[in-house]
């Protein structure tokens, strides 16, 4: 049973047109750069992408928008992308906006085998339309369903041959959640090590959730908003 793939092209080879994908990352932080590049090269079309954001015009999921590979985005915030806006207004792209915590928890639900969860987010707003509302202890909650994604594409800092993953700083974000939620989960890592090199106490995603893993390359890790203090 070997989970190690040579590269992104091999790992994503069987992602077909029309697939439902999850892509980890928050903004451009912790996104599966290699998988996105490989999907652009492969040209897979009509994708549904579950991702907190949609990248920027020339990076991240924005690259797949440029090539019109995305049919639908399910996101919480999509504000940094002119091509996205153009496709949305022209009706080429379908968008479902959902609260960020709902997005995260629907991933958790999938990874934990819970068919639905309750959250107060969106009660009394247009997000609640068509959803079951339920009162617990005097407070209203919406029932939201677990995601059902064909593939999850995640990016980790380190990974081992058993599929165990470790994330760095806030590049963790949605990655471990989506890693648990995909029917098939593909992990790209900055550093792939043999089994036994990672401390079992400090694994963020146990290998049981990971089906394919590969050593990524050429990471750009673009910073979206560089904010710094002046050195005195």
């Amino acid at each position: 049973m070997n989970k190690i793939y040579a590269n992104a092209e091999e790992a994503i080879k069987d992602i077909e047109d029309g697939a439902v994908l999850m892509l980890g990352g928050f903004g451009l932080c912790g996104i599966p750069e290699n998988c996105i590049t490989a999907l652009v090269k492969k040209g897979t079309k009509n994708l549904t992408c579950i991702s907190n954001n949609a990248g920027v015009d020339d990076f991240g999921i924005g690259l797949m928008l440029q090539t019109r590979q995305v049919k639908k985005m399910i996101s919480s915030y999509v504000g940094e992308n002119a091509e996205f806006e153009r496709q949305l207004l022209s009706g080429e792209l379908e968008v479902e906006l959902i609260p960020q915590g709902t997005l995260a928890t629907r991933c958790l639900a999938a990874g934990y085998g819970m068919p639905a969860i309750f959250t107060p987010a969106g009660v009394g707003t247009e997000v609640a339309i068509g959803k079951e509302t339920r009162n617990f202890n005097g407070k209203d909650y919406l029932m939201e369903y677990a995601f059902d994604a064909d593939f999850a594409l995640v990016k980790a800092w380190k990974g081992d041959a058993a599929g165990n993953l470790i994330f760095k700083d806030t590049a963790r974000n949605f990655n471990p959640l989506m890693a648990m939620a995909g029917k098939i989960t593909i992990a790209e890592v900055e550093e792939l090590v043999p089994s036994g090199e990672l401390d079992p106490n400090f694994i963020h995603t146990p290998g049981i959730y990971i089906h394919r893993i590969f050593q990524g390359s050429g990471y750009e890790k673009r910073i979206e908003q560089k904010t710094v203090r002046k050195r005195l």
Partner: protein
Amino acid sequence: MLDKNGIAKRIAKEIKDGYYVNLGIGIPTLCANYIPDGINVVLQSENGLLGMGPFPLEGEESPDLINAGKQTVTMLPGSSIFDSAMSFGMIRAQKVHLTILGAMEVSENGDIANWKIPGKMVKGMGGAMDLVASAKNIIVAMQHVNREGESKLLPQCELPLTGIRCVKKIVTELAVLDVLPNGGGFKLLERAPGVSVAEIIAKTKGKLVVDGDVPEMEI
């Protein structure tokens, strides 16, 4: 009348020792600069960080360490990193004591609208709906009137809602107001320096409760 930093400074007085606080984008972010000396406050960033510190020194920024506004940040001693489900888990479980965020409109029963303007490109609600639906204590930092000079404190929100009956306090360039329970309206607590009660009344469209003398705020 307060400028943005003045609003942030006044709100910062509401932050108590031991609080875990989530700051929204814009004026709320500025509050971090005015946290009173001698109190211990931990900033939560909903992308998965507790113990957020100031922006990094030039050259020390990391693409792997950003806040929910996607800005490069730092971590203070005692920080922790977690995934987005735990982040919103602790928000829903009300472990975060105070949420400070901006708004386009607030209604007299505490409804808030801050994510969508019909006819304009919708960017999304991000974590705002989770935060306002969960937080026990929500302070809104905003201008009292919009660019057209219309009051943003309304009987009912006209824009699509972000959350209902959730805002507890509002600080604008003109005033500090509590949102009274059960649709009781906006209670005027403090005037900004040089601002008259008459001006606040004129610029508040929702029900305003003015009870006795209204002191000028100390900041």
